[in-house]
């Protein structure tokens, strides 16, 4: 970002440092690379710390702690770190569709962390009432993640940054590196930026990765060990200052994922194509559910536009993202925040977000008995056609040492089943119940 120059007017209150640190954060987050910034308080830290509560109605809950720390150890050099800790639990859809009759599932293996290590337990069946969405209530996970970024000038008008990230869960590990460059033009009113990122992830499903389209059972054959997944991203961006009150950003990005992209815990129900009733499986009392299979590569393209405008001290932040991929998903995201600065250093910030996506080509709510198996298939609602709405409100207050903030967002996702699933008894069921979630966060910024 080209907002700070050696001749810029520095607002009071140490904001020179704040702006410099904001640019460092952009690089840390993998956003378009920042441009020149002047920081005055070498060695001073700015730390954002927040506690998050995320809860889906009848499903998953997540408690997390997140810390973001930034400093300028030397002139024009910026260093950033982030750490986060998540603990998730609750019920997650296993992909099976609701049925007009009660359903039984083999109880999956449950992991319990103890002082002596992780203990796996499981076995038996659990039942789901007629008409209800099957949920795996053993979902439990803990995630640790961290990242670091180093930014330095590149010539008089440019910046370069390098970063790395890692995370670990009981069945997933991530290691990523990224680099960004940016250059100012046009009296620092225009910034061109570019970034690349590469990640090397490892998936180690509990119980092994199932063989696609084999039947769900406690003794299902699987492939042991870890499966690799690689993601490469590239981004080109331009940021333009229009007026003293308006700034615009436009990014184009591409992403390629290779490797194991299947969800090892998701299945599809196999139903009668006329009656819609569940096909019996080989185990007594349990229907036929087949493990899903996704392609082993995915190419995504995104166009992102951002407009920020200051209305006499109040700020509108609006963005539009268009995304498409070779799985057949197309999405549009409109996100708007309005920061309403009140007197005495308080602010209110309403937020609304609209999201819409088409279904992946291989999304099927159910599979049909007797029909040829498709090459790929998933019943994961995240790859279904759906609309989502988020509304939220944030309150913030500046203190002598920093800034306190609290916010609540309500998320409502409304998915549609694949049209071919509406057969027989399935017509009268809600095959893709809405997902409702609440996001609550309390945060504090140390340093102004």
């Amino acid at each position, binding site marked *: 970002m080209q907002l700070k120059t050696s*001749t810029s007017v520095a607002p009071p209150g140490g904001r020179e440092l704040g702006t410099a640190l904001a640019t460092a954060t952009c690089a840390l987050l993998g956003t378009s690379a920042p441009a020149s910034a002047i920081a005055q308080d070498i060695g001073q830290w700015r730390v954002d710390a927040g506690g998050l509560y995320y809860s889906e109605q009848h499903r998953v809950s997540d408690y997390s702690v*997140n810390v973001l720390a930034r400093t300028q150890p030397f002139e024009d050099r910026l260093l950033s770190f982030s750490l986060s800790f998540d603990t998730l639990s609750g019920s997650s859809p296993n992909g099976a569709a609701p049925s007009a009759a009660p359903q039984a599932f083999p109880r999956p293996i449950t992991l319990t962390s103890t002082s002596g290590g992780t203990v796996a337990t499981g076995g038996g069946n659990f039942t789901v009432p007629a008409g209800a969405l099957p949920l795996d209530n053993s979902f439990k996970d803990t995630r640790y993640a961290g990242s670091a970024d180093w930014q330095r000038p590149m010539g008089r008008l440019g910046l370069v940054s390098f970063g790395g990230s890692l*995370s670990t869960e009981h069945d997933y590990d991530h290691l990523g590196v990224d680099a960004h460059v940016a250059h100012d033009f046009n009296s620092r009113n225009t910034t061109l930026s570019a970034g690349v990122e590469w990640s090397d992830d490892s998936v180690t499903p509990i119980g092994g990765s199932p063989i696609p389209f084999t039947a769900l059972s406690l003794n299902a054959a699987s492939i042991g060990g870890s499966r690799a997944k690689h993601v490469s991203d590239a981004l080109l961006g331009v940021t333009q200052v229009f007026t003293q009150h308006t700034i615009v950003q436009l990014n184009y990005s591409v992403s390629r994922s290779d490797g194991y992209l299947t969800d090892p815990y998701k299945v599809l129900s196999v139903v009668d194509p006329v009656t819609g009733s569940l096909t019996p499986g080989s185990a007594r009392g349990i229907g036929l559910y087949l493990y899903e299979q996704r392609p082993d590569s995915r190419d995504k393209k995104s166009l992102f536009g951002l407009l920020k405008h200051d209305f006499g001290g109040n700020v509108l932040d609006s963005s539009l993202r268009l995304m498409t991929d070779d799985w057949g998903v197309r999405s549009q995201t409109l996100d708007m925040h309005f920061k309403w600065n009140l007197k005495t250093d308080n602010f209110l910030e309403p937020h609304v977000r609209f999201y819409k996506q088409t279904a992946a080509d291989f999304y099927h709510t159910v599979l049909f008995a007797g029909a040829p198996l498709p090459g790929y298939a998933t019943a994961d609602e995240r790859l279904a056609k759906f609309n989502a709405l988020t509304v939220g409100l944030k309150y913030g207050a500046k203190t002598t040492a920093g800034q306190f903030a609290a916010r609540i967002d309500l998320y409502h996702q409304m998915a549609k089943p694949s049209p071919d699933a509406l057969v027989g008894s399935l017509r009268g069921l809600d095959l893709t119940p809405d997902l409702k979630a609440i996001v609550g966060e309390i945060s504090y910024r140390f340093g102004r």
Partner: protein
Amino acid sequence: MWKLRLCVLAVVFAASAGCANVGVKPWQRGVLARDDMQIVADPLDSAIDEHVYFSKEASSGGQGFGGGGCGCN
């Protein structure tokens, strides 16, 4: 349709960026230097939101890279 939208947005932006009156002088950057006028005004919130939506939707990234590094169920 996607390509059409992309072209329209690109043309609009390029045309806007080419306007002779676009931009400000160094001494006119007081408002733009405020924290809340930065491209990412609240990096903590942005990172959290990106991670939440990454785990629930088929899209991610755009402004930066996606909120990956997660086997999110």
